[in-house]
């Protein structure tokens, strides 16, 4: 079997990929197998939007193959590149946590990309059928989100100002 994505093992299953991610790395093989059955595999063409700024969010994404650029519109209609993500990155975790989120960035595939999506409703369904897995996932999502928030605050010097003030 050949892969369009040279940097990723061609035979890697979804469960194996999930075990490499920051979000789901702590789940055991059985839990990963269960999770691999509920995520959605999405393929994107070069330049295609994964999601767009200003639209509601209903799913988090895990980048399996290719790369994705996160951008934000700025004054004057220009677009600011915030980050370029590589596998096995995850992004938009808050959208899966059930907050009525309107996205403040856009994500766009750079070249062909394959992503896994986990919807808020998938997580709710998981909580009904496998609460122990859902609990681990939600705790991990909260950790990742809080860490991201801290990074943002630190990068803007807000934490240090608050500590001083």
């Amino acid at each position, binding site marked *: 079997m050949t892969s369009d994505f040279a940097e990723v093992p061609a035979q890697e299953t979804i469960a194996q990929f999930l075990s490499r991610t920051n979000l789901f790395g702590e789940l055991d093989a059985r839990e990963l197998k269960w999770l691999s059955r509920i995520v959605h595999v*999405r393929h994107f063409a070069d330049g295609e939007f994964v999601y767009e700024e200003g*639209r509601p969010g*209903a799913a988090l994404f895990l980048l399996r193959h290719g790369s994705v650029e996160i951008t934000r519109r700025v004054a004057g209609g220009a677009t600011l590149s915030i980050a370029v993500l590589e596998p096995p990155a995850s992004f938009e975790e808050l959208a899966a946590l059930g907050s009525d989120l309107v996205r403040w960035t856009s994500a766009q595939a750079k070249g062909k990309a394959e992503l896994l999506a986990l919807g808020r*409703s998938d997580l709710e369904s998981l909580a009904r059928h*496998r609460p122990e897995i859902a609990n681990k996932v939600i705790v991990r999502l909260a950790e990742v989100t809080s860490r991201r928030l801290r990074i943002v605050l630190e990068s803007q010097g807000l934490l240090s100002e608050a500590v001083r003030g």
Partner: protein
Amino acid sequence: MAEPARAAGSPARRLGTLAAFGLGACVLAWIGWKTRSLILPCMAGAFLAYLCRPAVGFMEQRRVPRAVAIALLVALALGAAAGAGHAIGSAAPSGETIAKLKVRAARVAHERYAQVMGLDDAPFTGNGFYRLVRKETDPLLARIDQFLALEPDEAAARLVPGSVARPLGTIAHVLPGWIVAFLIFVFVLMDTGEIKRGLLSFVSNRFFEPVLSILSDLEYTLRRYARAVFIQCVLLGGTVTVTQMIAGIPFRWAAVIGFFAGMANVMPYAGITTALACGLAYALLGDEIRSPFPFIDADNFPVAVLIAVLVTDAIKNIVYDPKVLGGAMRLHPVVIVIGVASGAEMFGILGALLAVPAIAFAVAFVTSVFRQLRAYGEI
């Protein structure tokens, strides 16, 4: 940064999209019409599966594998059905008993009618009330007589006990539909998201999240409706049992009436109607009265049963409907009545049963589609 390559919203393209949607809808409608005999079993199986999902989820949370949980549920249902069938079979009146009951019901109806209308004292003129309403009530009594008249085979059964034929042919006719319903039931229960994943795999990336949200809304609506209906059926069945007992019906018969009224309540208004019909039937035909109120006797027993049903209906309307069903189904009563009548007209009793969930589902679908597409800026 380069501008993304987006679908141009030219009028020709929109027209093409609309034409494709229209063609797709026509093809779907044609397939639906051709397979209409399977629609109802599929709906019944899926709805039943949704009702049973919490039970499977409960077992799964206790580490019971999903397949084993479903097998246990099916075995339990089959066992219960077999037990109920055996109980009903052994308790069901024979042809001879049915014929006797019919004769007795006709006699009681005539006696009560004569008593209320004053026909005992003045056989031809009756009382004032009779003279006022005779044009309506006499034909009604004639229709009751016609309904209770013995069929030729029943008349024979009265002479030769146990010779009334059962309509096995009808059961054999609907069996394939029920096999489909059972398969759909198992299929939906076994599903751990594959159906949703399959549907979403046909959706373009642009509409992935809106469709995900729409499916989530629909699942939530169906789950909430199924749970509310189940709770309401249990509550109504219990209430009917208690009120009928207070009216004077012995516990075992009140429990049977409550059970059937609760079951029938899946169809709007059918629960109360069942309680009224069965309660009045007992009041007119039964001998035993066990009310805690000493003033209830054979003469006012039907009135007591009627009051009990009215009280039950009031409790249902004031407490159960707003508290239990409340937000799960915001449908106008006229829509419900027309929907149930249309369902019964098109698909019989099962159509009437499934009319309300189908309407609630359709309303939720349309509402959700518009809400999500608006939120995502598509319309």
